[in-house]
């Protein structure tokens, strides 16, 4: 699995395996074997002890929502092109996103596809899950537990 299937732009990283595991249904972090510090998003290197001997560990997936938004004016990559057919138009309805804290210091960003943004509240209990999109790209979604 190419890392780009998750990251969209960045293709080369030492934590490439993250994308494979995500496709396989697991959200993985890395853990420093020397000092025990855990990283999500995963890092190949540990700035805490300057070590690079890491092991992979699945994260807890339930936590509380730190914050959220719904971006109505998307960047170019995500923008909807208007159809060429005269008198036609596309109604764009964006999807909210949020940051879930599954453990202290482990924030998981994800889409919140099933909620009206006005009903989303900071502090909500939610669960993060891997999700494969119709175009084969892999991502993470957050849902109320």
């Amino acid at each position: 699995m190419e890392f780009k299937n998750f990251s969209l732009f960045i293709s080369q990283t030492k934590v490439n395996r993250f994308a494979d595991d995500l496709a396989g249904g697991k959200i993985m972090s890395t853990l420093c074997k020397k000092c025990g510090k855990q990283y999500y998003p995963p890092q190949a290197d540990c700035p805490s002890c300057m070590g690079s001997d890491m092991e992979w560990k699945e994260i807890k997936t339930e936590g509380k929502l730190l914050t959220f938004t719904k971006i109505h004016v998307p960047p170019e990559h995500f923008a909807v092109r208007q159809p060429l057919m005269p008198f036609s138009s596309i109604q764009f309805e964006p999807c909210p996103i949020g940051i879930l804290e599954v453990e202290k210091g482990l924030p998981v960003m994800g889409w919140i596809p099933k909620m009206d943004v006005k009903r989303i509240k900071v502090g909500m209990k939610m669960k993060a899950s891997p999700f494969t999109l119709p175009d084969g790209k892999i991502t993470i979604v957050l849902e109320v537990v």
Partner: protein
Amino acid sequence: MRKVAIVGIGHGKFGVRSDASLRELVFEAVKGCLDDSGLSLREVDSMVTGVAGDEFSFGIQPSAQVHDYIGFHPKPNFRVEAACATGSAALRTGWMTITSGLADIVLVVGVEKMTEVPTSTATEIMGRAGDATWEYPFGTTFPGYYAMIANAHMAEYGTTEEQLARVAVKNHYYGSLNPYAQMQKEITLEKAVTSFTVAYPLKLYDCSLITDGAAAILLASEEKAKSISKKPVWVAGLGCGTDAMRLGDRKSLTSLEATREAAKIAYKMAGVGPSDIDVATVHDCFTIAEVVAYEDLGFCEKGEGGKLIEAKETYVGGRIPVNVDGGLKSKGHPLGATGVSMAIEITKQLRGEADQRQVKNAEIGLTHNVGGSGQVSFIHIFRRQ
């Protein structure tokens, strides 16, 4: 350490400048700056150019376009970059060039030509100034990052959308009095709160503008400054702080640690505290950013920023006038030029040349300029004497 002063200022018109290229914008600002100081370029020892985006300038060496066009070669010039705080990074570099003894007079230029690309491309370029690997795949944009800060601030302190809109109303009012501002028009509170949502809960009038523009200042060592200018404005304190790349990794989502760190250093160096500041320009890329800046700079208690604007304490005549040049919100935000433009406004205020926007007897001023969603922050404190 050698003392350094601002001895010349030049500000081009901010806006959609489809009439001029990047280098032509710089020429306007540099010309104004030389006229203001009475110096010629021959007397300037060194130069620093602040440009944030390669993608806006279509080349990796925008600084060369600049020194070529104003005819500064063969003297030193290079580019510095710190996203939206590029202009302040350039000023800091200019200050270091003088205090180190490498030069006595330094030209600091900030410029951006953002409308060279379509708005959606500009949105994308700025969105990727967050973490392009781990945040951008979720469609994040600049308004998106600050919207997440706004939602956290509202949940924790009860800050309201109306309070945020009041920041926009203030900054548009002062922008209407600033001839260099992009949007010289007042807005009503109703117009601000009913404008369309850009990133929930931030609406159109909560957001700063996509702007073309340039600004330039001349810095000089103490001995030179006194002979060049009757009203030198002294750099009294400089602070720089940084924070995690991703919002989720920050200690706080309702405060910018980078700003708090920079403020601590700058206040200490200048030997002043928040209550000594007579006038400030803060980084209001979004209305929530100005509210958070009030708190992080110590102009009010944590969580009280919404109330400070509600009580109009940041207007001229209030406890601490903020962004009385219109701010990024209404003056415009050409990334590389913004920090330099902030220093120009403070210079005008301390010289007593800010016309209708003048804060009476302003002695001490502060600029606060943030890069990205708070990854880096620069604070400069200036004194009249």
